[in-house]
């Protein structure tokens, strides 16, 4: 019977059945098969736990604020500012693109909106500077997820909720590897700019002043949010409340990029993403609770530990497994996989925060992994290029991010250094 059910579920999954239905259906079936008194109640009671998660509210608030930013003139002002700041350096325009995308992705929830909103501005800019097509295309495709290691990105929040680790600690932990990756990619940009003799843009105080003045209301935002969280002044949820209020005030009343009557549309569009996440999260809680009851993680550990004795090969295997899952669907991957692997990793003595960082960086790599990575599809649609061309263009970047992932996996201090330094619990 269970085999029959698994085959049916798999077929429906391939046909494109919604993940929440697969999760909810499996949970109902498994509780039923385990002769639970009332499978329906077992699932719903777990789902109701959503209302007890303290950081959950940060998901709708940050997502809404991100959508407002994406639909305003903020992307243009951000790119102009980054160009004025970094354009004079060797590889400067590319570096400006990297930083602008990282910041923007962090603030818009890493849902792929960066490629649509910023890619279209940065790609022509790079081409105008005579950067090679493959390099430019690869850069905008890669940077679509570059910011997901920085607060307040949505995947970090979701991981902390599902993996039951401190969100504030994870925010601090993932930023250092994120910054290292940003530096490595900047180095690559300098190298390419040198090899192709890309001309530099002259620095002018005038351009910088204009860009600074234009973005004057948006510049405080990262400092307010990131500074607030790192200094312990706000929790992540409070930062989300402040950010959504601030962003509406600035974009609607100061810049007037959006009209008040545009807001309901932005609200419903952003809450569709939130709803899609929440319904999967809710139904998966039932499935997770079944798996914990059935001691699936400890059985998995027993099975693995018969062959793998030390953490290092376990982490290698984990990375390969995650990469395959993450390539398919990022948010569902976090919700489904994290509750199972966290207890297993704990048995191997791996710090849950370190695990979180490597998971997030793995997500970032998954976004751009052929054949199914989401960024590749978004870029292909946005720039009207066939997928194989994107596979080729992103390969050097893929290798760089893979290198960074290995570094993060095998140097735990990299992730644990900042949270320990700031004494964030």
């Amino acid at each position: 019977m269970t085999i029959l059910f698994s085959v049916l579920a798999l077929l429906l999954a391939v046909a494109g059945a919604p993940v929440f239905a697969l999760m909810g259906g499996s949970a109902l079936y498994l509780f039923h098969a385990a002769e639970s008194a009332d499978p329906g109640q077992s699932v719903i009671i777990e789902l109701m736990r959503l209302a007890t998660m303290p950081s959950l509210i940060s998901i709708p608030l940050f997502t809404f604020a991100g959508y407002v930013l994406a639909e305003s003139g903020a992307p243009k002002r951000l790119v102009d500012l980054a160009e004025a700041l970094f354009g004079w350096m060797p590889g400067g325009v590319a570096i400006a693109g990297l930083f602008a995308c990282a910041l923007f992705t962090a603030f818009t929830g890493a849902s792929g909106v960066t490629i649509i909103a910023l890619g279209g501005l940065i790609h022509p800019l790079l081409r105008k500077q005579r950067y090679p097509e493959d390099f430019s295309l690869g850069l905008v495709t890669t940077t679509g997820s570059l910011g997901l290691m920085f607060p307040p990105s949505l995947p970090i929040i979701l991981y902390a909720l599902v993996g039951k680790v401190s969100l504030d600690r994870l925010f601090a932990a993932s930023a250092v590897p994120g910054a290292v990756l940003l530096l490595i990619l900047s180095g690559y940009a300098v190298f390419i700019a040198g090899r192709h003799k890309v001309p530099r843009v002259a620095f002018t105080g005038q351009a910088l002043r204009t860009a600074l003045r234009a973005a004057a209301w948006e510049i405080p935002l990262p400092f307010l949010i990131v500074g607030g969280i790192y200094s312990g002044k706000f929790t992540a949820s409070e930062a989300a409340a402040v950010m959504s209020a601030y962003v509406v005030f600035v974009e609607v009343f100061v810049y007037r990029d959006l009209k008040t009557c545009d807001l309901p549309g932005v609200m419903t569009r952003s809450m569709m993403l939130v709803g899609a996440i929440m319904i999967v999260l809710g139904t998966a809680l039932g499935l997770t609770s079944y798996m914990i009851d059935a001691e699936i993680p400890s059985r998995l550990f027993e099975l693995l530990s018969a062959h793998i004795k030390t953490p290092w090969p376990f982490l290698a295997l984990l990375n390969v497994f995650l990469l395959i899952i993450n390539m398919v669907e990022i948010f569902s991957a976090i919700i489904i996989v994290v509750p199972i692997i966290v207890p297993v990793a704990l048995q191997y003595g791996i710090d849950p925060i370190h695990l979180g960082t490597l998971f997030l960086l793995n997500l970032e790599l998954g976004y751009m992994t052929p054949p199914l990575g989401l960024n590749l599809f978004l870029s292909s649609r946005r720039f009207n290029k066939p997928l194989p061309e994107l596979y080729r263009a992103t390969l050097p970047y893929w290798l760089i991010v893979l290198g960074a992932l290995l570094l993060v996996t095998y140097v735990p201090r990299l992730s644990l250094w900042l949270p320990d330094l700031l004494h964030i619990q």
Partner: protein
Amino acid sequence: MEKLKKAEALLVRLEGATLVTLLTVMMVMAFLQVAARQFFGTGLLWGDTFLRHLVLWVGFLGAALATADEKNFAFEALQTGLSGKPRARAALALAAQLCGAAVGALLTRASWIYLLAEHEEAKALFTAGGFEVPAWAFAVILPLGFLLVTLHSLIKAAEAAAKLR
């Protein structure tokens, strides 16, 4: 089919309006809570509980709209790959939407039973200004939300079935 589409458009408008109202309340209140805490060192005691339950309402309405707009998370590669074969694609969409509707209906039923039990128990979630707010009042969104998701899935299934003919 036309009537069905009109009815769904009306339902979507209603869901959207409710969602926008609730999200606005949530944003304003969350911001006031932070402001009160930063400047006066205190906030409404029941505020956080209320807000956390409001997230459920906003989330479920968002999920209903996502279902109507076919934005739920799903493995889409096969359906996308079949874009040249509309009938095969419609058949897959029909199976996928019916699966969503079936599980949605089971979860609607289960959460309805849960709601009845909560109502029976009549536990207070919090007290606001001397007024006891019962926990079941917030749990209403579970059966309601799953019902809306089921309805939208059925409508999408009907649309897919119409393409099969």
